[in-house]
C-alpha cells in the first residue's frame, strides 16, 4: 500500500520550541489512525502541520502527491463566527470551494451533494436556519457535513467528539468508519482510549516524540501509556539548540 502521508524527521513547534520532536514514519493510504497522548503531547500541532497551517521547524511532511488545500481538516477549536448571518445550507456549501472557487456555479449535482451531506449527518430540514441557532452537537454535525462535501483523500480530525453527547458521537463515528470503507485516509486526535481500541485499527501514541506507533492493541499497552504520561510538557525558555540529527524511529 503506498503511503498517503510520510513524515521525514519532522519537528513542529512554536517560537523554535518543539511540540512534536523528530517524528519519522508513514501512514498508508486508506489507514484509519488514532493519534493519542496526554494534553500537550503535540497531537494538535502534528495535525496542524499536516494541513499546512504550521510550517515544520525541521524535516518535511509529504502528502503523497496531494495539495495541502485538498486535505479536509476539522480543527479542535474553530474560529467560526456563529453570529455571522449565513444559513446552514450556504455554510455547508463552502465545502465545495475547491471545485467552485471564486465564481464556479453550484449546479444540480452540487446541490444534491449538499442535500446528501446534510442528510448523512441528520440535519435535513435545517437548510434555511442560521448557523447561530444550532446547538453544539448540531454544529459539530454541520462541520462533519462540510468535511463530507470536501470529498478529500486525506481527512484530519482534531478531537472531533469533544463535548458532544453519546448519540451524536456514535453517529459521527459511523461516518468516520464509512470514510474508512471508502479507502480514504483518516487521522483523528482522540482521548477516549476505549473508542480507539474498538474502532481504530492503528494508533500513534505521541508525547512530543512518538512513544509507540502501529497496531492499536500493541500501542495501547499499560507500559507505553505510562511512559507517555511521564513525558511531561518540558518547556525550557533557556533550552539550547537541539543537537540531535538522528531521527527517533517509530513503528
Amino acid at each position, binding site marked *: 500500500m503506498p503511503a498517503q502521508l510520510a513524515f521525514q524527521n519532522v519537528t513542529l513547534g512554536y517560537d523554535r520550541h518543539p511540540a512534536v520532536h523528530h517524528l519519522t514514519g508513514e501512514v498508508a493510504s486508506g489507514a484509519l489512525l488514532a493519534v493519542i497522548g496526554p494534553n500537550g503531547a503535540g497531537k494538535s500541532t502534528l495535525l496542524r502541520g499536516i*494541513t*499546512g*497551517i504550521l510550517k515544520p521547524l525541521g524535516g518535511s511532511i509529504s502528502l503523497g502527491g496531494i495539495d*495541502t*488545500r485538498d*486535505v479536509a*481538516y476539522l*480543527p479542535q477549536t*474553530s*474560529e*467560526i*463566527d456563529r453570529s*455571522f*448571518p*449565513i*444559513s446552514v445550507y450556504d*455554510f455547508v456549501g*463552502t465545502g465545495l*470551494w*475547491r471545485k*467552485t*472557487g*471564486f*465564481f464556479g456555479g453550484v449546479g444540480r449535482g452540487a446541490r444534491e451533494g449538499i442535500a446528501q451531506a446534510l442528510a448523512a449527518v441528520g440535519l435535513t430540514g435545517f437548510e434555511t436556519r*442560521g*448557523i447561530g441557532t444550532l446547538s453544539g452537537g448540531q454544529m459539530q454535525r454541520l462541520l462533519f457535513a*462540510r468535511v463530507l462535501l*470536501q470529498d478529500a483523500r486525506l481527512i484530519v480530525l482534531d478531537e472531533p467528539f469533544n463535548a458532544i453527547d453519546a448519540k451524536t458521537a456514535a453517529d459521527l463515528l459511523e461516518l468516520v468508519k464509512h470514510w474508512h470503507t471508502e479507502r480514504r485516509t483518516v487521522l483523528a486526535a482522540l482521548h477516549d482510549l476505549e473508542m480507539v481500541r474498538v474502532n481504530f485499527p492503528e494508533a500513534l501514541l505521541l508525547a512530543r516524540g512518538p512513544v509507540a506507533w502501529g497496531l492499536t492493541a500493541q500501542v495501547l499497552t499499560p507500559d507505553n501509556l505510562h511512559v507517555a504520561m511521564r513525558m511531561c510538557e518540558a518547556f525550557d525558555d533557556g533550552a539550547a539548540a537541539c543537537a540531535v540529527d538522528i531521527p527517533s524511529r517509530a513503528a
Partner: protein
Amino acid sequence: MAVDVLIMPFTEFEFMRRALVAVIALSLGGAPLGVFLMLRRMSLVGDAMAHAILPGAAIGFLLSGLNLLAMTTGGLIAGFLVAILAGVVARSTGLKEDASLATFYLASLALGVTIVSIKGTNIDLLHVLFGNILAMDDQTLLLVAINATITMLVLAVIYRPLVIESVDPLFLRTVSRAGAPAHLAFLALVVVNLVSGFQALGTLLAVGLMILPAGIARFWSRDITPMICIAVASAMLSGYAGLVLSFQTRIPSGPSIILVAAVLYSVSILFGSVGGVVRQLFPRRHLEA
C-alpha cells in the same frame, strides 16, 4: 404640494441632480462594504480609515489648492498606505488589527489637521472635514461613479472568499490562499469609497453612508444577501430624503443625509423584525417545535 417638495428640487436645479447621482453611486459602492465592515466587527475601522486619508488629501490641497483630483489622489495614497501597513503589521505580528490601525490613523489624523492648518483657512478646514455634495463638478462626479463601478466589480470577485473568511477564517486558510489578498482588496475598496464619500460628506461623515445603512439592515434580515440589498436601499433613501430635507431647510447637505439615516436606524432599532425592541417587548407566542 408634495411634488413641489419631493421632485421639483431635482427638476429645477442641476446641482441637486448631480448630488442625487452622487449619493446613489455612493450607496451602491459603500453600503455593501458597510455590511462587511459591520459583520467583521470593523465598523470603527471604517471610521479610522476615514481619518487616515486626511493627510494625503491635505498634501494634495497644499500642492494645488482646492483641486478635487489632487486631493483624491493624495487621499487614496494615504489611505492605501495606512490600510496596507496596518494589515501587514497585524498579519505578520501578534498585534490585533484594530490596535494596529488605531496607531496608524491617529498619527495620520494629527498630521492631516496640521497640514491643512499650516496653509489653509478655517473655511478650507471645514470643507475638508464636512465636504459639500452640492458642489460636485463633472470631474468629481465621474470619479465617484468610477469608484462605485470598480467597487461592485471587485466585490463580486472577492465575495465568496470574503464571506468564508468572515465566518470561518481557519477553514479558508486550509482550502485556499485567497484570504489575505481578498482582505487587502476589501480594505482598498473601503479606502476608495471613503475618498468618494470624502468629496460629498467630508472626512468625518463619509463612513456614515456605509455603517448606518448596514446597521439598519441588521434589524431586518438574518441572511447576508438580503442584508446587502436592504443596506443599499436604505442608503439611497437616506441620500434622497437628506437632499430634500437640506433643500427645504437650512441644514447642510452632508449632516442632513446622515441624520435621515440615523432616523431610519432609530426606527429599525425600535421596530426591526430581527431583534427590534418592540419585537422583544411583545414577543409572539412560541412555536410548537
